[in-house]
């Protein structure tokens, strides 16, 4: 994401980034409808008030998404706050477009089997385009812990894909 967004039309910017931001929102919400509410609130806040701020705009928008998601959780169910990163999500495969390449489809099928805290790091790293330091700041964990979760996730995905290949 470049600084061009400051002078860009929001539609063009959102067309480029909306899908991946929604995927991030989906990590911290319990349904697609909640994710849509969160992305709407977070993006409006970011575009109106934060896009001119100094710093990495990508990190800013992810922070805005996380804050909106936590606000929604607090509103809907305070108890869910402690569980916000561990939702069992059977809808994972619907987060992506289906793939014709069987290896990519296998990868897509393997993502939901990751523990939520590892999957969260993978999503923030790949589609959030954040560094481990930024991921640590988002999740209130150390960069080393973020990197460790990433390594475990990569190892788990590799094992699963290899296993699927030989099935």
């Amino acid at each position, binding site marked *: 994401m470049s600084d061009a967004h400051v002078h860009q039309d929001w539609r063009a910017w*959102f067309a480029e980034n909306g*899908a991946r931001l929604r995927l991030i929102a989906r990590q911290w919400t319990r349904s697609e409808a909640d994710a*849509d509410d969160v992305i709407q609130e977070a993006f409006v806040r970011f575009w109106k008030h934060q896009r001119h701020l100094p710093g990495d705009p990508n990190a800013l928008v992810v922070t805005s998404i996380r804050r909106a998601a936590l606000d929604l959780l607090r509103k809907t169910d305070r108890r869910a706050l402690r569980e916000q990163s561990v939702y069992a999500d059977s809808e994972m495969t619907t987060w*992506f477009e289906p793939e014709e390449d069987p290896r990519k489809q296998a990868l897509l099928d393997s993502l939901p089997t990751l523990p939520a805290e590892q999957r969260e790091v993978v999503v923030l790293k790949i589609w959030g385009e954040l560094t481990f330091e930024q991921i640590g700041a988002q999740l209130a964990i150390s960069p080393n812990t973020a990197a460790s979760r990433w390594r475990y996730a990569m190892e788990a995905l590799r094992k699963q894909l290899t296993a699927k290949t030989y099935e």
Partner: protein
Amino acid sequence: MNDKNDFADDDLVAALRDLRPRPVPALVIAALAQELDAPAASRGNIIAWFAGVTTAAAMVVVAFHLASPSPATPDFQLVRAEQGPTNLELLQPVRLDDGSFARPLRLHWENTTHWEDRRTQAHFINYRPVEQVALIPLETY
């Protein structure tokens, strides 16, 4: 990805990047357009228009009360007057022109009066938010 399907780290990351998150529904984009496409000027116009309508409505109500009573004139009686709880917000200290410091304090509450015409069962509720800002002098050493 290599031919054996054994993913190296780089291949795995590349394959993940190739996955395509589903697009945002059109309904969300329409909602965003409603929020973000409304130009500030038109919002200002709406506020100005609303203020004008409110003033006109207030004048109509006043004229209504001042007009000579007739059988059709409502006879509103005050049935309830409420003052809501006051919200107090302490703002960042500021430096005044004379060099001293003060902390702005914003007070906000709502006054509501409820009028009723017992004959026609018509109700008139006057809701009035009030906001005041005060300065608390700060002593510095």
